[in-house]
């Protein structure tokens, strides 16, 4: 599982211009794997992203917006995207100011499906 998962994470950073890192965590906020800069506390980010995803899912539900896709949080120096990976996991993608968001969404969908399969199959 580990090699396939890390290959997907590295591949996303290589393919999408502006992606600076990513992590995969369980829906409870437990870290599965991280490919982030040293300055990013991956454990904390996993926990915060899980909490945010829960709120975002609930927001989509109460506003009747259909199936949840992703949240995108933008700051002055870049953005953070949180994607649901099936029902039990999530992926956070970090990008800088120049992140090609269209390319990210296009590339992330198939990557999320593959990561979902990897996580549920395991070793």
């Amino acid at each position, binding site marked *: 599982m580990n090699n396939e998962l890390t290959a997907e994470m590295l591949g996303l950073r290589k393919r999408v211009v502006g992606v600076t890192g990513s992590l995969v965590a369980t829906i409870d906020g437990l870290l*599965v794997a*991280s*490919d982030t800069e040293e300055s990013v506390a991956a454990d904390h980010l996993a926990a915060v992203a899980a909490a945010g995803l829960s709120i975002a899912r609930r927001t989509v539900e109460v506003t009747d917006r259909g199936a949840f896709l992703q949240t995108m949080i933008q700051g002055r120096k870049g953005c953070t995207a949180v994607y649901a990976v099936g029902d*039990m996991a999530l992926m956070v993608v970090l990008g800088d100011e120049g992140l090609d968001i269209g390319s990210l969404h296009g590339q992330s969908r198939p990557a999320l499906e593959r990561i979902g399969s990897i996580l549920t199959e*395991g070793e």
Partner: protein
Amino acid sequence: MVAVRTPGAPGPETLLTRTGRIVPPEGGGRGGEENGVRKVGIAELEVVRMVSAYDAAFAIIAGSVEDCMLRAGDEPQAQEQAPGWGEDPGSLVREALRRADALIALPHAVLPHDDLVAVAAGVDREAEGGTPIRREILLLADGRRTCRDIAYATAHGVYAVAVEVSRMLGDGLLERAVPGEPRLGGAGEGPILPRRPVVEGAVLDPPQALPRRTPGGGGVIPSRTEKRAKNWADFARFRDLAK
């Protein structure tokens, strides 16, 4: 040509805000050229836009293009983005090609969007460097960043960073890096299984009858029960005994 935009090179907003030429608006807003507090004149603003356009044209030639879009001058989006004086497209392309040739001619030329660079072994990233741009590159070269990433972080052009990185590779200050493996967390050992469905009405430990107290069950001294008062006269007797 009044503007060239690409994810491969920092745009005017990044160059202006990161260098403090424009202070982003408080509490929100996109922080674009027209928002926030501008600390540059029209002429300097135009120069930054043109520098950005030339750098973006170089980045497009040096990198790979998946998609592109041409916006004509009468489109509202084009007018919002670049109300500048404009540049001859031919000279823009010629300059981009000249820059690409100049970079390739360097002995340790890097690919600005592909090659990851790290500080060479034995080099002190705090002490070495020299010029300001070299010091910034040394601080940011962590093996995860390309020249394009460093350009965004430092608000320099991609071409300027690529040339400097190539020279620093030659000087032995930097080295090419291979992507580091992602780190595994505590939940990365086995498969992530869905939760078992909740069974309605199920209880883990069905309650039995409520516990009943029995005399002496709590370890009460038997003799104490014999001293229990039966009427007010007994109370008086016990009080005398206590004295």
